[in-house]
C-alpha cells in the first residue's frame, strides 16, 4: 500500500479508489456511499481520538480533587464538632451550677436557648455526609468514564492491528493530531482543565524551608 504521508493522502487515495472502481450499476452507488461515509468519518475520528487522549488524562486528577474536597470538609467538620462538644459541655456545667443556686431562672432560659442553638449547629453538619455522598457519586461516574476511555483505546489498537489500511489510517490520524494539537486545540483544552487547586502534601515547614534556602 506504500507509506501514507498524512490524512490528506488517505483521503486522496479513497477518492482515487472511488474514481477508478469498476462495479455493476447496482453495487456502485452502495460503494460510493460507503467511501463517502469513510471520508466523512475521518475528521470525526480525529476529534474523538484527540478528546479521548487528552480527556482521559485529566480524569484521575479530577477524581483526586473530589476525594480531597471530601477529606477536607470532613476534617473541618470534625474540628467544628469538637469545639461544639466543648461548648455543650461548658453550658451543661454552668446550668448545673445555676440549678444548685436555684435563683437564676432567666439565665437558665438563655442557656437552654444556647443549648438548642448548639444542637441545631450539630444537625446542620449533616450537609457534610450528604455532599460527601454526592461527590462520591460524581467520582464513580468519572471512574466509569475513565474505564470506558481505556476500553475505547484498546478497541482503537485492535482496529490498528487488524488491517494494513487500519494501521495506515491510525498512523495518519496521529500525525494529523500532532499537527493540530501543536497549534491551539490542545492548548485550549489544557487551559480549561488545568488543576487550579494543587495539593501534594507539602507542609508549611517545607515551604518555609524553600524560602529560607533561596
Amino acid at each position, binding site marked *: 500500500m506504500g507509506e501514507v504521508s498524512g490524512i490528506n493522502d488517505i483521503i486522496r487515495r479513497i477518492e482515487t479508489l472511488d474514481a477508478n472502481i469498476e462495479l455493476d450499476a447496482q453495487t456502485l452507488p452502495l460503494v460510493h456511499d460507503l467511501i463517502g461515509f469513510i471520508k466523512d468519518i475521518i475528521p470525526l475520528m480525529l476529534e474523538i481520538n484527540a478528546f479521548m487522549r487528552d480527556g482521559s488524562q485529566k480524569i484521575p486528577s479530577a477524581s483526586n480533587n473530589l476525594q480531597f474536597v471530601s477529606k477536607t470538609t470532613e476534617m473541618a467538620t*470534625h474540628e467544628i464538632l469538637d469545639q461544639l462538644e466543648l461548648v455543650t459541655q461548658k453550658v451543661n456545667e454552668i446550668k448545673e451550677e445555676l440549678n444548685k443556686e436555684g435563683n437564676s431562672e432567666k439565665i437558665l432560659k438563655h442557656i437552654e436557648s444556647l443549648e438548642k442553638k448548639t*444542637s441545631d449547629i450539630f444537625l*446542620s*453538619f*449533616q450537609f*457534610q*455526609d*450528604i455532599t*460527601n*455522598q454526592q461527590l462520591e457519586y460524581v467520582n464513580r461516574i468519572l471512574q466509569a468514564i475513565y474505564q470506558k476511555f481505556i476500553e475505547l483505546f484498546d478497541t482503537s489498537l485492535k482496529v490498528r492491528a487488524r488491517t494494513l489500511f487500519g494501521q495506515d489510517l491510525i498512523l495518519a490520524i496521529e500525525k494529523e493530531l500532532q499537527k493540530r494539537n501543536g497549534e491551539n486545540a490542545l492548548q485550549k483544552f489544557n487551559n480549561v482543565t488545568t488543576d487550579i487547586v494543587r495539593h501534594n502534601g507539602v507542609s508549611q515547614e517545607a515551604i518555609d524551608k524553600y524560602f529560607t534556602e533561596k
Partner: protein
Amino acid sequence: MLEDKRILFVDDSPTMRRIIANALKNLGITNYDEAENGLDALEKLHENQYDIVLTDWNMPEMTGREFVEYVRKEERWQSLPILMITTRGMEDDVLTAIRIGVNGYIVKPFTPEILKKKMLDLIG
C-alpha cells in the same frame, strides 16, 4: 420513655455518627452503640440486645439494605424495629425499604423532632 432504651446506630460517616449520638443525648438516650457498616452492626447485634436499630443505606462492606435483609432472615430479629436514616429519598427507595422490612424511614438531613417522633412511634 426513650431514656431507658438501648440503641444501635449504623453509619459509615463519622460525622453522621457524632451527629446522631448528639441527637440521642438530647433525647436523654445515653445507652447506645455505633457501627460503621452492616457487618460491624451484625457483630454488635450478635453480642447485645437492642430496642431499635438506626441505619444508613449507602455504606461500604455491607449496605444498609443488605444488613436489613440479613437481619430479617434471622428468626430472633424478625420483630427488631429498624429505622432507616438515609440520603436516598426516591419513592422506589422507600418502597424497597418497606419491602425488605424497614419499620421507619427518614431522609437526611433529619431534624431532632422527626427523629424523636419516629423513635416514639416505634419504641415509645
